């Protein structure tokens, strides 16, 4: 019973102590609990981080290997294509070289010859120059001819004038108007007058042309009106003074028709011409031009004759 009393006396103290100790522990319990949680969470965090770091390391290794593998594959593809391209370029370049040569050859040989064209153009320009020269010469010649014709016409006119005014010629007694005594030399017209033959009376009659007037054109209504023939010898000329021959005899002799001698009648190259004619006929007639086969007995003599005459 003593213990019980002691316990009962202590029970309040025990209860107080019990309560005090629990409450004190409670205060520390939270703190200790929080500290334990903190330590544990930190440790877990380290654990997880280490795990993740490991995972990263491993993933990097895998990816590294994978990427190097795929890169190498790509690189091989690139190299393959590059080498293909290089080879194709080379082939292309060689093909271009061949085609270039071939095309040049083909054009030059079959289609267009540059040197020929150059020569042709040179020839054309030379022909042009030649033609230009020839045409210039031709034009010059024409001009010269025209000038000459003009000069001749002028000359004829002056000559006719001189013949018409022949009476102005100076005589011994009376100097003419072109031969004034106060001049050193006579006028050139004077010399012309001296050279000119005076016009006769009949020439003026003959020179008169048939005038083509309306009435005369229609007047000759006959269909057989021929142009006038050459002038006949004059009939009604006065008898000239002096011991001249009879006019009929003179006229007979003057207008005697030509009777050439045999020597004159034939032209001088008659024989040659006849020979040529003969040869030409022979050549036309003969089938074979070879002279030896042509020779027959009848021809031989003639041939000899001709040859002899030639020598």
């Amino acid at each position, binding site marked *: 019973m003593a213990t019980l009393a002691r316990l009962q006396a202590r029970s309040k103290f025990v209860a107080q102590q019990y309560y005090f100790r629990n409450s004190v522990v409670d205060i520390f319990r939270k703190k200790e609990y929080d500290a334990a949680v903190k330590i544990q969470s930190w440790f877990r965090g380290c654990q997880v981080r280490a795990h993740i770091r490991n995972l990263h390391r491993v993933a990097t290794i895998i990816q590294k290997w994978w990427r190097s593998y795929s890169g190498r594959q790509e690189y091989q593809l690139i190299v393959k294509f590059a080498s293909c391209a290089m080879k194709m370029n080379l082939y292309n370049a060689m093909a271009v070289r061949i085609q270039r040569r071939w095309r040049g050859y083909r054009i030059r040989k079959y289609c267009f010859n540059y040197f020929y064209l150059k020569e042709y153009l040179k020839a*054309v320009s030379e*022909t042009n120059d*030649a033609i230009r020269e020839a*045409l210039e010469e*031709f034009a010059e010649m024409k001009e010269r001819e025209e000038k000459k014709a003009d000069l001749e016409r002028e000359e004829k006119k002056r000559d006719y004038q001189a013949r018409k005014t022949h009476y102005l010629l100076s005589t011994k007694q009376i100097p003419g108007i072109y031969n004034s005594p106060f001049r050193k030399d006579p006028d050139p017209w004077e010399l012309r007058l001296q050279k000119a033959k005076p016009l006769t009376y009949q020439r003026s009659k003959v020179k008169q042309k048939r005038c083509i007037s309306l009435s005369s054109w229609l*007047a000759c209504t*006959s*269909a057989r009106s021929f142009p006038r023939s050459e002038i006949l010898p004059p009939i009604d000329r006065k008898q000239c003074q002096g011991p001249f021959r009879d006019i009929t005899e003179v006229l007979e002799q003057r207008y005697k028709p030509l009777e050439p001698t045999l020597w004159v009648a034939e032209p001088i190259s008659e024989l040659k011409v006849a020979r040529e004619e003969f040869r030409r006929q022979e050549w036309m007639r003969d089938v074979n031009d070879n002279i030896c086969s042509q020779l027959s007995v009848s021809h031989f003599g003639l041939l000899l004759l001709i040859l002899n005459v030639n020598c």
Partner: protein
Amino acid sequence: MSQRQVLQVFEQYQKARTQFVQMVAELATRPQNIETLQNAGVMSLLRPLLLDVVPTIQQTAALALGRLANYNDDLAEAVVKGDILPQLVYSLAEQNRFYKKAAAFVLRAVGKHSPQLAQAIVDCGALDTLVICLEDFDPGVKEAAAWALGYIARHNAELSQAVVDAGAVPLLVLCIQEPEIALKRIAASALSDISKHSPELAQTVVDAGAIAHLAQMILNPDSKLKRQVLSVLSQIAKHSVDLAEMVVEAEIFPVVLTCLKDKDEYVKKNASTLIREIAKHTPELSQLIVNAGGVAAVIDCIGSCKGNIRLPGIMMLGYVAAHSENLAMAVIISKGVPQLSVCLSEEPEDHIKAAAAWALGQIGRHTPEHARAVAVTNTLPVLLSLYMSTESSEDLQVKSKKAIKSILQKCTYLPALEPFLYDAPPNILKHVVGQFSKVLPHDSKARRLFVTSGGLKKVQEIKAEPGSLLQEYINSINNCYPEEIVRYYSPGYSDTLLQRVDSYQPLTH
């Protein structure tokens, strides 16, 4: 009344008729009298005199009628309406040569005015009698008949065919061989009028063997004859290649070239017409002409004439150059281009300028060398001014535009192209810029020159729609230069620089 007095009355009447008809014929030579004569009713008075007993009066009456009908077509119609033609045709067959000449003169005078009058002559059967007159001995009669036939055949192809059907062509060819120059001229002119209408008629003339004789007559010194002969040959040659080849086979080259140096202008014109008609058919014929030196002769001929005489020569050069580039080069080396540009600038008439522009276009359109040869002579600005000027006719504008375009498409001679940048209209500017864009990428000296001459500046100033061809060309030109230069020359760059100067704050310490 004694017999003599009776006869005297008749003689007086005859004298009066003769005098009347001779005076009328003389008065009809002057144009101012003809109106008065017509009003006085001379036609109805002359008609019965044609049937007069006295041949002289008939002939003079016919002559007077011919002169009246020659003057204008009213009188010619009056002759036709007055039923004079059948009488003339009938007596043409029977009378003497003076009457034949006068009657043929009347027919010619009536037939020359219009196709209807000529048809009236054909309808009254005059052709057969005229053809019979062609066989007459007298050259004057032949000449008058040939002249009448020529004038009838001149109008159209049916009348020519009628003349040919009457059998005139062989006789005309015979007339050409006669010694009289006037007859040769008229016969050649008649053949020319017949053969100009159609190839069949020309073939008929050729079949009668005319070409050989005509080719010989080219050498004749008479200029009027040469005119007609060259005219016949050119009318024959113009229709087809075969006819042209036949004319050439008659060995007219190089004799025809001497005609180009003749003093008479129309001989030159007809000779160059003949050469043109031959050259235009095929390249081989043109080649033949070039080989014979014809191009040089024609160029000299162009240089020595003025006006319409030059026109066939210019066209001939155009035709020759149009066939192929070798022939065009032959024209260039014969010094054709300076001559053509002279023609272009100094001729007053538009159609000749148009022909010269066309010819230059044909020469320059083949290759860059050809275009360069044309551009070097400074003709492109002249062509441009002709195209732009409002006074030029439409034909001239069209032709010069075509010529400019065709030359520009091949021209790589940049100094000639540069002036075009400044004053060309947009449709031509496109081609110019296109040519620059083709040449500049390859030639560094040209690029430098382009910049220094201010061309790049001008190109920047051109406004073009984006995406159009012009813009592409401008871009390709701009790609030839570094960016700074392009920016420097772009319009408004100085303004942007000044703006930058304005907005620049200098650093203040």
